[in-house]
């Protein structure tokens, strides 16, 4: 598309069962009751001028430009704050209102710089409205009374120029209403009034501003403007695509000048984000052009050699020869691959197809192994399908929201903003988390209950909640009888009713005050609409799958499944975790979650692909590493995942990789895993490819190629090149052909195609003949598996125990500005918010060790040790420490153990027994790793063939 601003109807859409009909300048228009005159006029094609209005914000009535005349009414009311009424006759452009607007515009111009760069660039609504009003100059003295206020250029992505500000409050309201952070305010009065971030001495950077960009998007004048617009100029075209960070799946307009991306602006029609964004998606895309980006294929015979740049053909031939040689010598079981949750559905589907049909083995796994594999197991067992039950909009109908093991304001910020909006409307919140996450108490949001459980006791807490619900007769028996297996429920109810599962008996285990737990259970059971949201604090435990099933039990027991406002909602970490799982990335499942031992399913694929598939499950990632050490696994193709940094027990991962004959890394950068690789295939960013991502609400959305791939090939083309080199006759010419294959082989995707996605904007699977427009809420009329299955989830304590040597429990997580191993975000300006991983410790534990904030500390577990600096905070409970895992210099996973979920081997990142002591420098391992890593990344530049 060419460039034009996104349409704005002035005030938000109103949903109403009744409507009114009015006339705007003589033209009749019918709108939902409660709609503003301004919006009705816009819908009728009569745009009324305004400066303070936006359909992203509630009407404010401040700028006085949108005045209209209404028959039978005195004066000239503001159209933004006047509701449309039946039979109303509105006049938007009478001589009287035009004169009023000219007067108002003259006042605005008097306080607006004549040399406004935004006006010159066409990015200032003042210039537009002045032109619309027919005036060029003001009769008043320009700027005479406006004080000189310096620009605030502290934020790495946008500047604030008070001289251009008209104090319309759009930015302040966007921060309040859209983002929910309340970081901005109007300071001072009259001509001295100005937008202020935080306290008087704060800049945007030092304030509570989270750099979501809502204020920049709302600003009508260029007072708040992206630095990139100032540097590059205004965009001249835009392409709609989908963000490649978290599982919210925001859609953006990539706005370009020529072939250069100027900015990413959240798309108002995006059904996941509704025009909102976070600091990562909005601003942190510069990694695509980072100097570390590798765009040339590279190979080497052994990992102690420098890399040698080669052409694509040589890279494919080098790789194929070694793959085929290993297969001939050691069998297909010696090969395997890992798909990426950052790549598209089509790319992921091809990698698992390459492994199954090309390598001849089911040794394919995905990074979901280390995050949401227990979600797949748990929800398939209880409900019959491996996915969340709701769409994001469902939260707006929730009455009680239970957040367990998730930190949405940091990890899923755009969804968190919607959740906060619902909480501000009066929904109640229960937080179950060892840390006092921001949602527990923040402006205009306060949890009714925060249950700060001991890490590793999720199942015990949920069983105690179930105990209260069953014992006190709060279970929804009618729902259970109709929708679930009654006998299984009876067994479960008898189990949880046992006195040993009461909150009081379990309190010494969970460390949750029994009275709070009882009250929280009652609140949830009596919610009306009770919705559960969870994250990796649920899954990354030795009982991750049990906890997911315990959550499902709780939802079924209280009848909170099968309608809007309720449900079980896994918040997926990466952009396409859901999609990667859907596409058959697990070693035991084909696409659509059909087991490889299912003869009928396998026959379908065998007929389509012309191969015989192995009916036995393959190796999971940790099993691949174990098998590498015993010599039975020798070659690994890793697309878009850095297992050395992200997987637990770094020493073990390194040993496994080192034992392999061939490691193929397909990525944007020479990541930590590439230190142990023999082939590097450069990848393409989300800006450089076509395809689809599927977000946490099962929403399949198009990813559009915005610019040409810097490496020359999209990732699906790289996989196809490799496939052809080992003898597969693949001839895809566009990802739409891959999706067509997915659709014909996968019942839940039967109705999905690029064409349908373009028509509908997005589709939530299942998309079938019975649900051609997709399925926003699942299990409405019955569970996918038939009857909902209650599973008795016994609390089995983790084998990871604290003791005299390791008396503290470490739990890990991520923060707003960074994303997972940081490969992308560390290569953006986001590092200003997080230059290093820090260790959080309670003051009591810090005092005991003589530690204070800023001190270097040595963090040690039975698997390894690292050093990092300390932050003393009561966010964590005594006995618990917390850190992030975004920086390879820290490598928090040197410390984490190989204990994992009993059902899926998802690592137990959230519970590691550690000791923390003062330190005066990096560990021996950190020093040797840094040295090794530097050596491993040498590149010998030779002429390319």
């Amino acid at each position: 598309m060419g460039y034009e601003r996104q349409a704005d109807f002035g005030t938000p859409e109103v949903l109403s069962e009744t409507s009114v009909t009015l006339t705007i300048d003589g033209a009749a228009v019918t709108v939902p009751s409660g709609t503003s005159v301004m919006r009705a006029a816009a819908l009728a094609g009569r745009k009324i001028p305004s400066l303070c209005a936006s359909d992203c914000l509630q009407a404010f009535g401040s700028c006085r430009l949108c005045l209209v005349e209404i028959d039978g009414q005195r004066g000239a009311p503001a159209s933004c704050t006047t509701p449309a009424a039946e039979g109303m006759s509105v006049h938007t452009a009478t001589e009287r209102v035009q004169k009023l607007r000219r007067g108002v515009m003259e006042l605005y111009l008097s306080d607006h710089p004549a040399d406004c760069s935004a006006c010159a660039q066409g990015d200032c609504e003042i210039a537009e409205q002045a032109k619309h009003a027919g005036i060029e100059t003001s009769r008043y003295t320009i700027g005479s009374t406006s004080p000189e206020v310096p620009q605030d250029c502290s934020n790495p992505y946008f500047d604030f120029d008070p001289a251009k500000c008209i104090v319309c409050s759009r930015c302040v309201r966007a921060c309040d209403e859209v983002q929910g952070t309340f970081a901005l305010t109007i300071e001072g009065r009259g001509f001295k009034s100005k937008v202020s971030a935080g306290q008087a001495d704060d800049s945007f950077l030092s304030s509570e501003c989270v750099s979501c960009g809502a204020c920049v998007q709302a600003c009508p004048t260029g007072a708040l403007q992206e630095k990139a617009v100032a540097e590059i100029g205004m965009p001249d075209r835009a392409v709609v695509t989908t963000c490649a960070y978290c599982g919210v799946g925001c859609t953006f307009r990539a706005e370009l000048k020529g072939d250069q991306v100027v900015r990413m602006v959240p798309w108002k029609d995006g059904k996941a984000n509704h025009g909102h964004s976070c600091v990562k998606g909005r601003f942190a895309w510069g990694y695509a052009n980072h100097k570390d980006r590798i765009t040339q294929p590279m190979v080497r015979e052994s990992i102690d050699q420098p890399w040698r740049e080669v052409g694509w053909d040589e890279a494919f031939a080098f790789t194929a020869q070694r793959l085929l040689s290993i297969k001939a010598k050691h069998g297909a079981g010696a090969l395997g691959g890992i798909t990426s949750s950052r790549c598209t559905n089509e790319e992921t589907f091809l990698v698992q197809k390459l492994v199954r049909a090309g390598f001849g083995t089911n040794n394919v796994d995905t990074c979901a192994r280390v995050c949401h594999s227990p979600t797949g197991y748990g929800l398939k067992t209880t409900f019959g399908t491996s996915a969340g039950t709701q769409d994001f909009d469902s939260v707006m109908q929730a009455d009680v929201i239970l957040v367990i093991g998730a930190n949405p304001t940091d990890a899923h910020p755009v969804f968190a903003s919607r959740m906060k909006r619902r909480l501000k409307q009066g929904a109640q919140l229960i937080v179950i988390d060892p840390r006092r996450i921001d949602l527990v108490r923040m402006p205009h949001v306060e949890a009714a209950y925060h249950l700060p459980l001991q890490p590793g006791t999720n199942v015990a807490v949920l069983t105690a909640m179930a105990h209260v619900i069953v014992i006190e007769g709060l279970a929804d028996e009618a729902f259970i009888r109709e929708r679930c297996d009654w006998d299984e429920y009876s067994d479960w109810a008898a189990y949880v009713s046992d006195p040993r599962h009461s909150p009081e008996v379990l309190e010494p285990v969970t460390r949750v005050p029994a009275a709070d737990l009882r009250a929280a259970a009652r609140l949830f059971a009596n919610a009306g609409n009770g919705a559960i949201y969870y994250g990796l604090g649920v899954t990354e435990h030795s009982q991750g799958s049990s906890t997911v099933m315990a959550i499902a039990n709780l939802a079924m027991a209280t009848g909170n499944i099968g309608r809007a406002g309720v449900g079980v909602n896994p918040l997926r970490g990466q952009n396409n975790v859901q999609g990667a799982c859907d596409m058959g990335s697990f070693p035991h499942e084909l696409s659509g979650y059909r087991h490889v031992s299912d003869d009928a399913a396998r026959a379908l694929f065998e007929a389509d692909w012309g191969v015989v598939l192995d009916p036995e499950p393959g190796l999971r990632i940790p099993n691949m590493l174990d098998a590498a050490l015993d010599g039975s696994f020798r070659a690994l193709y890793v697309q878009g995942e850095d297992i050395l940094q992200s997987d637990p027990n770094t020493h073990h991962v390194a040993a496994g990789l080192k034992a392999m004959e061939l490691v193929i890394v397909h990525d944007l950068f020479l990541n930590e895993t590439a230190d142990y690789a023999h082939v590097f295939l450069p990848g393409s960013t989300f800006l450089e490819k076509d395809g689809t991502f599927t977000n946490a609400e099962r929403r399949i959305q198009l990813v559009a190629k915005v610019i040409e791939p810097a490496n020359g090939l999209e990732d699906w083309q790289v996989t196809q090149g490799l496939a052809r080199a080992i003898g597969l006759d693949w001839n895809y010419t566009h990802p739409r052909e891959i999706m067509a294959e997915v659709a014909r082989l996968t019942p839940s995707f039967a109705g999905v195609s690029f064409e349908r996605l373009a028509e509908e904007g997005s589709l939530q699977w299942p998309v079938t003949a019975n649900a051609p427009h997709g399925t926003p809420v699942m299990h409405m009329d019955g569970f996918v598996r038939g009857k909902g299955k209650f599973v008795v989830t016994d609390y089995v304590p983790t084998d990871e125990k604290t003791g005299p040597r390791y008396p503290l429990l470490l739990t890990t997580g991520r923060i707003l500005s960074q994303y997972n191993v940081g490969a992308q975000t560390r290569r953006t300006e986001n590092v200003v918010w997080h230059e290093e991983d820090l260790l959080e410790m309670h003051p009591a534990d810090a005092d005991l060790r003589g530690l204070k904030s800023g001190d270097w500390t040595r963090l040690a577990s039975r698997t390894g040790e690292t050093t990092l600096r300390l932050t003393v905070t009561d966010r964590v409970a005594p006995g618990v420490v917390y850190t992030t895992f975004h920086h390879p210099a820290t490598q928090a996973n040197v410390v984490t153990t190989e204990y994992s979920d009993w059902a899926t081997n998802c690592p137990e990142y959230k519970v590691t027994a550690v000791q923390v002591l003062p330190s005066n420098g990096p560990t021996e391992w950190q020093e040797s790793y840094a040295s090794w890593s530097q050596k491993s990344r040498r590149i010998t530049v030779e002429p390319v063939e």
Partner: protein
Amino acid sequence: MDLARLHHMANQIARNFAVQGDEAAIVATLDHLKLFWDPRMKAAILAGDRSGLEPIAQAAVERVAGIQK
């Protein structure tokens, strides 16, 4: 494959099914091994010393052996 690690995995699976009662837990553990373990993992646990297995896991592994015979 590291036998101690396989034993730990099998025992962990069995412990989580133990609440169902011995026979049901043995069947569930057996099914889990069949559905999710790569053949070389099953072969390794069958071939190795089983003294590190707890009773439910041991019974399940013996049934795997019986099926493979």
